């Protein structure tokens, strides 16, 4: 047990302890934490903080149009930079509007510090105007949260918040600050003087486990790496180590939706994404492998398919920074709780030191090549209709000489983007994986563009999703952020329609987007540029026009409304029971319908 459980005060250096108002402390803490951008929306209960912000140079505040937008923008910022995203919103509706974004960040392990105003302390519990139990509401969707009741606790709490959000398994935290605390004066402590009482994430791998992992890898005849968002969250060092490990071993590698970019898609070892809409080769390799090396992924239900039929003949190694992921969904022979960068670098080092050689993998690769030969991402193109796959392919091809960041909404377009847009580097792909939040991509693009002003930031969107947070186009205009919203407009909630076609007898209950806005006119109303493509012939020209415009663009790409996203593992099926095309006519079990 710790001998001193109060905060550890720094040696009493002169000037180390400032007396500030609570509001000033928030700004000082942000500055001391190296924060340059925050996303927010003012309101009664945060006015003192906004006042302090008004006088504070060096911190750029981005005014969003809805608090959900602030959180997604902060997520985009965080995921594309590796730094924490910071959100500032008011009490009551400000906080509740932020909840979707906070939950999204929790599911995808995105470091966020959300600061909410609260009604004054003496009004808490009286159903005051714009009061809600913010810490109660956000407890299940934050890594940790605090209601600050004493101004002298505020700076410690804020520094702890940053530490907890960014270390271990990253995630969102929330600090709720009553208005009277924002006005009160108290002692400000700098970050170095604060140490948490109980939070000590384990990041160093157990050497014995690494040695065993290397032995298992050297003995494997049909190995596969299954990697995830943990590699991205661990930082560029993890991606670097992963590349080295794959090169050393020569093993095939696949990734979850969240992990795309950690390993270059152009490399021969790359099998493409796995899971429900993954490639035939990735899923079959998972099914038939004898050693599954999971690095920073969590055996999500979109990845495993039917758990009882998941990778039946394999031994599993599971590396995760969060011990609770080991053995959560599937049993693991070897669990390694550590930071991915450290653990993978250690595997590389031990492999080299012991001069390990992989087993001959010729047969395994020959098998994989037969799966690849099925060309599971192929589609029938059209001369008259823009196929959504074709649109993504052209977007990819025409942006090769650019510094590109992609965000997405949720649905078919997201899966087509994940399947077809090839990433060579981490932090270039921002998508809502765990929560599946429609409306994520547009505000996320705002955050990405802010962090990378000269990059080409494209939200590959659907016309249904994008309308959920469309108001953030105003934010893009206000801050001169030339984001490109590339809408694959099929006039349907496409993934819903696809499932209704496959599972519900083609009864398209409320999935048709009636009364769509004219996106070109809408763009103009916002003050940005509207473009439309309706034929394959004009697509390239319009895409090039979009890229050339140095302003925000809404691109209405009219695509085949009835196209489905293949390949797919019907829910409740195994990895080797994929449907490759509409001609396959796969049957979905009753149990599978439940899992959609």
């Amino acid at each position, binding site marked *: *047990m*710790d001998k001193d*459980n109060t905060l550890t005060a720094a040696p009493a250096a002169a000037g180390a302890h400032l007396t500030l108002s609570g509001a000033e402390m928030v700004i000082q803490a942000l500055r001391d934490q190296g924060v340059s951008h925050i996303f927010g929306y003012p309101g009664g209960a945060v006015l003192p903080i906004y006042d302090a912000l008004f006088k504070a140079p060096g911190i750029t505040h981005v005014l969003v149009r809805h608090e959900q937008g602030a959180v997604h923008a902060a997520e985009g910022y965080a995921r594309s930079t590796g730094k924490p995203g910071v959100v500032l919103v008011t009490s009551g509706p400000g906080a509740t509007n932020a909840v979707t974004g906070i939950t999204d960040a929790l599911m995808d392990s995105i470091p966020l510090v959300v600061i909410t105003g609260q009604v004054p302390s003496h009004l808490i519990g009286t159903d005051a105007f714009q009061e809600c139990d913010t*810490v*109660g509401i956000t*407890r*299940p969707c934050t*890594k*940790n*949260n*605090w*209601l600050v*009741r004493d101004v002298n606790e505020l700076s410690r709490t804020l520094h702890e918040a940053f530490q*907890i959000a960014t270390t271990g*398994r990253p995630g969102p935290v929330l600090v709720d600050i009553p208005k009277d605390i924002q006005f009160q004066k108290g002692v400000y402590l700098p970050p170095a003087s604060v140490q*948490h*009482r*109980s*939070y000590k994430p384990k990041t160093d791998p157990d050497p014995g486990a690494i040695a065993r992992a290397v032995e298992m890898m050297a003995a494997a005849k049909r190995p596969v790496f299954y990697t995830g968002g943990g590699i991205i969250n661990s930082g560029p060092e993890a991606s670097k180590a992963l590349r080295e490990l794959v090169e050393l071993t020569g093993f095939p590698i696949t990734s979850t939706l969240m992990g795309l970019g950690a390993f270059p898609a152009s490399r021969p070892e790359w099998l493409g994404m796995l899971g429900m809409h993954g490639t035939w080769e990735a899923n079959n390799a998972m099914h038939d492998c004898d050693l599954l090396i999971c690095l920073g992924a969590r055996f999500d239900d979109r990845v495993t398919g039917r758990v009882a039929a998941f990778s039946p003949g394999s031994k599993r190694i599971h590396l995760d920074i*969060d*011990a*609770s992921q*080991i*053995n*959560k969904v599937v*049993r693991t022979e070897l669990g390694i709780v550590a930071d991915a960068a450290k653990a993978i670098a250690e595997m590389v080092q031990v492999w080299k030191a012991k001069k390990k050689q992989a087993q001959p993998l010729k047969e395994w690769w020959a098998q994989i090549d037969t799966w690849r030969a099925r060309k599971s991402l192929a589609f029938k193109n059209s001369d008259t209709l823009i196929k959504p796959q074709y649109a993504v392919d052209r977007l990819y091809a025409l942006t090769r000489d650019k510094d590109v960041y992609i965000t997405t909404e949720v649905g078919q377009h997201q899966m087509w983007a994940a399947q077809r847009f090839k990433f060579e580097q981490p932090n270039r792909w921002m998508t809502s994986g765990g929560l599946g939040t429609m409306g994520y991509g547009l505000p996320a693009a705002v955050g990405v563009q802010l962090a990378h002003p000269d990059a080409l930031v494209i939200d590959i969107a659907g016309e249904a999703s994008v309308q959920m947070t469309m108001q953030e186009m105003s934010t893009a205009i206000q801050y001169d952020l030339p984001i490109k919203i590339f809408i694959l407009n099929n006039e349907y909630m496409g993934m819903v329609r696809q499932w209704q076609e496959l599972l519900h007898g083609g009864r398209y209950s409320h999935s048709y987007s009636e009364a769509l806005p004219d996106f070109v006119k809408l763009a103009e109303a916002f003050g940005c540029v509207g473009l439309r493509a309706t034929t394959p012939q004009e697509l390239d020209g319009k895409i090039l026009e979009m890229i050339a415009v140095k302003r925000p663009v809404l691109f209405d790409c009219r695509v085949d409304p009835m196209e489905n996203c293949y390949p797919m593992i019907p829910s409740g099926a195994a990895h080797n029971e994929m449907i490759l095309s509409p001609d396959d006519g796969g049957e979905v079990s009753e149990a599978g319908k439940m899992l959609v």
Partner: protein
Amino acid sequence: MSGEAVERHTITVLVNNEAGVLARVIGLFSGRGYNIESLTVAEVDPAARTSRITIVTSGTPAVIEQIEAQLNRVVPVRKVTNWTAEKAGIEREMALIKVAGTGEKRMEALRMADAFRARAVDTTHTSFVFEITGAPSKIDSFIELMRPLGLVDVSRTGVAAISRGPEAM
């Protein structure tokens, strides 16, 4: 991981005594669909500001493993100990049990209480309140015996647990 037998486990969680920590621990159980059979919580070290939460839960071994892992993720949690798995813990519970009646039933209740080392802490001509301490199963047995003798009310504390020998948890 299904098909395994459901087991009952007693788990102690040492936490920083701060606002919301109990809600965070309990919310984890309800949010993830774990059972709570009993729950005991109190501050145990005011100087260190630590509280001790003891939870009796049930689940398959895989679920119990997840419960421990999930508890360990909670930021204000300092330590998690599963007494059932470690087989080194002493578990006790206290209960107050009210029995009303007259005549032979009343005398029988008093005799039973004596056999169970329960103490009468409130006595009227028509009722007793017994205080009993012991393993939960002992309290269960006592309550069952009191039922035909005029049991009217039961209040149980839930389980407190501690390790045997000289070490702290």
